[in-house]
């Protein structure tokens, strides 16, 4: 029986609204007691002196690329797991855009086996919604779900055909399965690498109108209303889309959305100098959209912050802008970039943490993301205020494609625990 006592911590539990100094006792990987009343732990427990630092549920990153199978030169489950732990992330959900694609139960099982071997953070996957992401034939949503796929998405491919999307939503609703959409109308975004406007024009880059997002979202929301399905819009990036989503939520639809740090921390000016690390999909937006995304996070219109982690190697990024592959690494920088919103006074701390813990847990029906007796002891210990600079040289991710290198931030992960065991420990650093 392994017992670990976290002494003198600032306990942060977004699910219950708890923000208080106290202790937490973990036993056999689960929280068995916690709260302000716990000053000292039992004698036989290994004590970890938190020194007043923040102890919160480990972060759940609901959108990342595992690299495996198929792109091991960019990321592996080993490297991603180490990077996630360093970022305070205790559970990662991988997109099905692997090679082979996760459109067959055997690939779900392959990833689960690899994750068991690595034994780092918890690793889950989504199943493809259509075979080969071609948008023509349904995948075995029921069988994939039984194998462990948490939800269904074509990843960075939008399901464009209305009849197909209707069938996906309709069929998935029979299993109460969540459908996640990259909401951009591909007939408008084909070939585009930037948002239409002055910057794209001056740079001479192929661009798509920002409206491509709201248009696809609006159609999807009508299909959701028709089918009664559960729907989640991934990496929302525009003001217009946020407005659509807010209206749908007011109508009572079971819909949600996430966004990624690039969409609340950066705007399209990053594209100047043709910096390919700023090439993301959907593309970076004007400052007004960035501000609207911050507001949507604050107002609860956007429920989740996800890293949208996508490791790209030099070969994929050292290219002319439009030929480079999209994506940024993000699991190691998600927490400090999100904390910028707290330090600037935009969002309350517990609200912010909820978007990376209990909110994704509820959406994906994962029994974690809270500091509750009986919950797994997936924890992050972090220094809320310590200043530092993002340094890609220190990244554990196999790829280093971050547009945030050198950015000053406040907030440092000190240690991370999965089921009560250390997966990252920088207490002496």
């Amino acid at each position, binding site marked *: 029986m392994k017992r670990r006592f976290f002494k003198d911590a600032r306990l942060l539990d977004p699910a219950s609204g708890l923000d208080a100094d106290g202790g937490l006792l973990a036993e056999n990987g689960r929280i068995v007691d916690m709260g302000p009343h716990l000053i000292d732990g039992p004698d036989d427990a290994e004590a970890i002196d938190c020194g007043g630092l923040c102890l919160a549920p480990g972060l759940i990153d609901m959108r990342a690329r595992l690299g495996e199978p198929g792109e091991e030169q960019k990321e592996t489950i080993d490297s991603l797991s180490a990077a996630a732990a360093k970022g305070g992330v205790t559970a990662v959900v991988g997109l099905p855009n692997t090679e082979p694609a996760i459109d067959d139960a055997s690939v779900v099982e392959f990833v689960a086996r690899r994750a068991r071997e690595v034994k780092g953070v918890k690793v889950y996957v989504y199943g493809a919604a259509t075979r080969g992401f071609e948008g*023509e*034939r*349904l995948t*075995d949503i029921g*069988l994939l779900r039984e194998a462990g796929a948490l939800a269904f998405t074509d990843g960075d491919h939008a399901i464009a055909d209305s*009849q197909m999307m209707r*069938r996906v939503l*309709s*069929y998935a*609703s029979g299993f109460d399965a969540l459908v996640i959409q990259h909401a951009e109308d591909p007939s408008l975004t084909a070939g585009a690498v930037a948002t239409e406007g002055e910057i794209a024009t001056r740079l001479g880059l192929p661009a798509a109108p920002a409206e491509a997002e709201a248009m696809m979202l609006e159609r999807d929301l009508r299909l959701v209303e028709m089918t009664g399905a559960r729907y989640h819009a991934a990496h929302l990036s525009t003001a217009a889309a946020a407005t659509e989503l807010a209206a749908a939520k007011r109508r009572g639809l079971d819909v949600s959305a996430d966004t990624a740090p690039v969409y609340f921390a950066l705007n399209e000016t990053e594209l100047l100098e043709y910096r390919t690390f700023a090439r993301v999909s959907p593309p970076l937006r004007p400052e007004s959209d960035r501000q609207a995304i911050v507001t949507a996070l604050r107002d609860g219109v956007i429920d989740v912050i996800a890293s949208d982690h996508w490791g790209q190697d030099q070969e994929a990024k050292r290219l002319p802008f439009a030929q480079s592959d999209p994506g940024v690494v993000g699991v190691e920088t998600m927490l400090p970039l999100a904390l910028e919103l707290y330090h600037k006074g935009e969002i309350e701390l517990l609200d912010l943490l909820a978007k990376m813990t209990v909110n994704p847990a509820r959406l994906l029906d994962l029994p974690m993301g809270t500091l509750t007796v009986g919950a797994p002891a997936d924890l992050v210990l972090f220094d809320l205020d310590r200043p530092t600079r993002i340094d890609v040289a220190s990244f554990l991710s196999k790829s280093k494609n971050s547009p945030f290198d050198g950015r000053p931030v406040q907030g440092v992960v000190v240690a991370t625990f999965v089921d009560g065991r250390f997966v990252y420990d920088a207490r002496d650093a």
Partner: protein
Amino acid sequence: MTAAAALASPHLLGIEGLTPAEIELLLDLSEHYVQLNRSGQKKSDVLRGQTLINVFFENSTRTRTSFELAGKRLGADVINISPEVSSVRKGETLLDTALTLDAMHADLLVVRHPESGAVKLIAEKAGCAVVNGGDGSHEHPTQALLDALAIRRRTGRLHGLVVAICGDILHSRVARSNMLLLRAMGAEVRVIAPPTLMPAAIDRYGVTVFHDMSEGIRDADIVMMLRLQLERMRGSFVPSTAEYFRFFGLDRAKLALAKPDALIMHPGPMNRGVEIDSDVADDVSRSLVQEQVEMGVAVRMACLDLLTRKTPSNEGDAR
């Protein structure tokens, strides 16, 4: 309920429009023909001198043979024709065919057509009684009647039974006719299908909708499986036969959730291993599949008999 002596309509185009009394009448007369068919003397001369034309615009072996046999046992002259369905100018071809058939002075037409409503169109032009042998996704009344007869013979009633209809409800005329008949006769009807195979507003039939078969089949007296139209299957209605069988196929494990003596039905032809496991399909103690075929001939004899009876008046509405 007063027993009807004849049908109010000169045609049998659907279960819709039949009164419970008319359904009883058809079932009772069918019962009589079951006895006749089982006796050594199968032949009758009720339709002697009358001409029955089976007009099948859509392939069928079972239903056409069943009507043919029914007509012949009643002493009618029976011919089968299978007009080509022209892909262009379909409507015109259909009306031309109807006029041609009318000119032949048939007494009975049995029509099957891939388009919903096509049989009604022919009935409007024909000068004789028309029986719907199945039109598109609309109705297949003789199938519902034979299913009801098979159930009634085994259980002694229809009222109060729990009937679970499972499969491709969206495309199924069998399901629609069965829902109408079973609800009219007081049975509780549940429909089970993935949402992609469930038509909109189906609850307006007075049925309960299930997407989880193990819930829908619970404590059912009758489990009626529908043929999954494999030609429509690959693609976007259902992902694969493997997944379909796992969640919507009838096997021992799912059947165990129904009543211990629940009966299994299937209108045929069966896709074994897709919507039904051979193990349960061939279980003679539970499966009504063979009896359904037998009842089919008797029910069609009853329909042909009733439609050709010269009643004093059809104007007096029996309803």
